[in-house]
Structure formats: C-alpha cells, structure tokens
C-alpha cells in the first residue's frame, strides 16, 4: 500500500505533533459520531428486547418495514440498470451534450430532498401537476402512492452507481473489449463476458451504497408519500412518528434497525474494497 511506504519514509521526529493530531481527530469523531451512535443502541435496548418486540408485532410497523425494503430494492434495480448503462455511454461514447449530462447527473446529490419531493408533486401531483391529472385519469396514481415514493428514492440515490462505475470503466480501458470484438463477440457478449466482470466491484459498491441510501431516504419520501398509516409509510417515517408521539422506545428500536443496516452496508464496502485494490 502506498501510504505505508510514505509513513516508513517520514522522519521519526515530531512524534508529539503526530499524537496531537491523532488525538484531535479521534476525539472529534468520538463526540460527533461514535458516542451518539452507541447511545442509540443503548437506548434501543434500554428495556431489553421489549421495544423490539413491540415494534415487530405492530402490523403498521412491519408493513412499513416491508414497504421500505420493496421500495429500496426496486429503486436499486432501476438505478443499477440505468447507472451502468449511462456510465458505459459516458465513458465509451461521444455525443453532443455529454459534458452537461455528466454534470447534471450529480445534481440529485446536492438537491434538498424536500425540493425533490416538491418537484415531483409539481409534475405528477394528481390535482394540479403537469402530467398528474392525465395519468390519474388513466388510472396511474403516482403522488401519495408507492410509484411516487419509488421515484423520489430513485432520484436521491441516482448518482451513486454512476459515481462508482465511471472511474472503474475508465481505469479498465477499452482494450479488453476490443480484443473480445476482434475475437468475434458481439456487443452484448462483450458486455456480459468482459465488461461486466471487470467492473463487478464498482457495481457492487454502487449497489450497496444505493441500498443504504434508499432504505434510509426520509425527506423526499415524506413529501410524496402522504404518510398514510399502514399504506404509504416507510421505516424512517415510523421513527419520526413514534418519537413525536412520545414512544421513544419504538423510535429508538426502529432507528437502531435502520442504523444497523446502514453500518452493515458501510462495513461490507470497506471490507470488499481493499480486496479489489490488492
């Protein structure tokens, strides 16, 4: 690894300075992330497993958990297909407007989730949206229904797969693909047998990160869901509702489950990543 060689070459003096920096960083992260995160776990288990038993036997909560998983999985599938495809186009092909598209694809990362929700309502809202009334007349309700929640989730997680796959595609280059073409493989065979295996890790990171982001989306989903109990309510909305209704145990338990999945996703990525860079 590159950094160990640097460390080995760095002069041994100035140990105190190094220790001060290390202490500052550790303390900062401890107070900002580690300790609060630990307390959520402790609060969730404050009554032993009672809080968990309570939420897992509440049909509204289990329905919300199921809905969260379904929405996240659908959103991840859409974003993976779209993300890998658009990454191939951005890296391998030239077309007018490529630079603008490349920049705009990052937009969802810097747009407020509330603005995302508002934007979707303005277009797909059943009452005065641009397309909403027409779609609803044809029987498709989007806002205050699951399709809108999927769209909001897809929107906020859109760039994650692309940002992981594009650098890998650039790094791999197109020589292997050319070799496959010269050996008689058509475009699809080349993609499936050569390109996909070589960008596999990038796609997996992207999927894991998208999954974490999709499971945890709150603001955008809140705006478009209407938050109908037992119908369009997701896990993150349950946390808010439980907390505001003074069911802190339920809020902490649900939050703990969500945090567990998020941390597991990060650990999966951090365990996989060095393996590939070896």
């Amino acid at each position, binding site marked *: 690894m590159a*950094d160990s060689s640097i460390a080995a070459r760095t002069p041994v003096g100035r140990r105190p300075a190094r220790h001060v920096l290390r202490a500052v960083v550790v303390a900062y992260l401890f107070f900002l992330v*580690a300790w609060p995160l630990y307390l959520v776990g402790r609060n969730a288990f404050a009554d032993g497993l009672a809080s968990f038993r309570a939420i897992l036997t509440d049909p509204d909560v289990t329905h919300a958990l199921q809905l969260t998983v379904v929405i996240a999985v659908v959103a991840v599938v859409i974003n993976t297909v779209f993300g890998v495809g658009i990454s191939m186009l951005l*890296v391998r092909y*030239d077309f007018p407007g490529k630079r603008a598209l490349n920049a705009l694809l990052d937009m969802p990362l*810097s747009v407020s989730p509330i603005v995302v929700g508002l934007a979707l309502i303005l277009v797909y809202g059943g009452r005065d949206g641009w397309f909403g009334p027409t779609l609803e007349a044809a029987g498709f309700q989007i806002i205050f229904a699951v399709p809108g929640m999927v769209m909001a989730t897809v929107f906020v997680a859109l760039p994650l797969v692309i940002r992981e796959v594009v650098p890998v595609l650039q790094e791999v280059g197109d020589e292997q693909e050319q070799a496959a073409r010269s050996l008689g493989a058509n475009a699809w065979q080349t993609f499936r047998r050569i390109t996909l295996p070589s960008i596999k890790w990038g796609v997996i990171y992207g999927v894991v990160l998208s999954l974490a982001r999709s499971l945890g989306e709150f603001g955008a989903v809140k705006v478009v869901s209407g938050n109908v109990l037992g119908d369009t309510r997701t896990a993150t909305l349950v946390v808010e509702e439980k907390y505001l209704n003074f069911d802190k145990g339920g809020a902490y338990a649900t939050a703990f489950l969500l945090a567990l999945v998020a941390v597991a996703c990060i650990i999966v990525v951090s365990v996989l990543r060095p393996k590939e860079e070896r």
Partner: protein
Amino acid sequence: MTSTTLVPDRPAGDRRPARAGLPLTRVSGLGLGVAMVWFSLLVLIPLAAVVATAAEGGWAGFWRTVTNEQTAATLRLTVGTALLVTLVNVVMGTLIAWVLVRDHFVGKRALEVLIDVPFALPTIVAGLVLLSLYGPDSPLGVNIANTRIAVFLAFLFVTLPFVVRTVQPVLAELDPEAEEAAASLGASRLVTFRRIILPSLIPAIAAGAALSFARAVGEYGSLVLLSGNLPMRTEVASVRILSSVENDNPDSAAAVAVVLLAVSLAVIVFLDVIQRRVVRRG
C-alpha cells in the same frame, strides 16, 4: 536497441491524439435515448417545474416571497450555518484525511467506517443519534435541542464525509519525493506542508467544501427531531418549503426551492470547473 537511427528526433511516445469516445451506434444511441427520457421524466422536468412555478408569480412575486420576514430568516440561518460548517469541514476534513493517510495506529480501520456512517445513516436517524448525546437526556448534561447550535451540529454531522473523502485519495497519491526534495532543500515540515502539499490539495478541498455546503443548505431530515423548527429561530429553508407544501402553497414553496436549486447548480458548475482544471494540470 543496438541500432542507431539518425532521423531527426520525433517527440517520444505516440502522437496519436488520445482516443476520444466512439460515435454512437444504433444500439447505444437507442440506449442514450431511453436514458435521457427517464432522466428527463425523473429529474429534469420536475426541476423545471419548480422553476416554472416560481416564475409564475413574476419577479416581484418571487422577490416578495423570498424576502418575507420569516423566509428571509430561514435563508439567512441556512446559508450562514452552512458556510460556518463548511469552514469547520475544510479544517477538520483535511486534518482527518491527513491522519487517515499518513498516520498508522490500531483502530484506524474503525475510524474509516465512522467517517462513512453519516453518509449511509438515514437522516431521521442521524437526528435521533445526535439527540441522544446532545438532547434532553444527554449523559453530558448539555441540552442543545431546539437551538441554533443544534442546526450547526446536524449540518456538521451529515457533511462529515465530503471533505475527508475528496481529499483522502489525492493525499494518498501525492508523490513523497516532492516532499523529500523540499526537505532536502531545507524546508521545515510546516513550510513543506504549506508550499508543497497544500497547493495540490486545494482543488480537492474546494470540491469537498462545495459538496458539503450544498448538502448542508438542503438538509432536512436530521433537523426534524433536533432543532424544533421554531420559526425565526431554528427553522431552515427545507422545513420552510415543506410547510408551504403542507399549507397548500406550492408557489411560495417553489420560490424558496429555486433559491436552493440555484445553490445546487452553482455547486455543480463549480465542481465541473475544478475537475477540468485538475485534468488540465494532469
């Protein structure tokens, strides 16, 4: 090579211009078309609708909405706090990246995971997480819930990874020989950092700062439980937009949203410019 060539020297290496992308084929063109339709339906048209709705009231209407006393207060609080948080992130993010790349100690791997937690954690959970240490039941005995400090803390939490994750790879790729050369020429550690290392980190720091500013300005979820959303005191722009939506007033929601979109767009353009400058410098 043993043989000599007395041909007037050609520049070494391949002079063929770097292969640009391929022109679109029928299949890839179709793919691009489908992708663009989807991207338009999902992102471009909805965002255009926000701008169009805000524009319906004309410039005067827009101006009236965003300078309304309460709205102006939320915008001042949001942008001001976001700037402050970005400043902290520039310093702390660079420092954290430095320690992660150059220092070695047991548990460094755990710190790496901690950095990414705010990115993956649902924002509503992030609010609850902070509340558990800095809220009414704080084991530290501090209670900052429903104050402006809570807004600051929430922004700080959710923007933690941005500067660290943009600076870290650049720092890891830095050529140690340049630092050794500077040291051999008599530069102290501090001078080496300021004159050799920092200049190469500036684009990464700027990119991370821009991302964390954009993220902070649009933040919503972590504040719901933490800041109390008190009008004129702790209400941020996203909360203001949401209450306009809930009060069935999409026009004023769109007007405030346009301000946030302008910030996002400015950040995107800024990042694009930085990226290009870095590429040009090679």
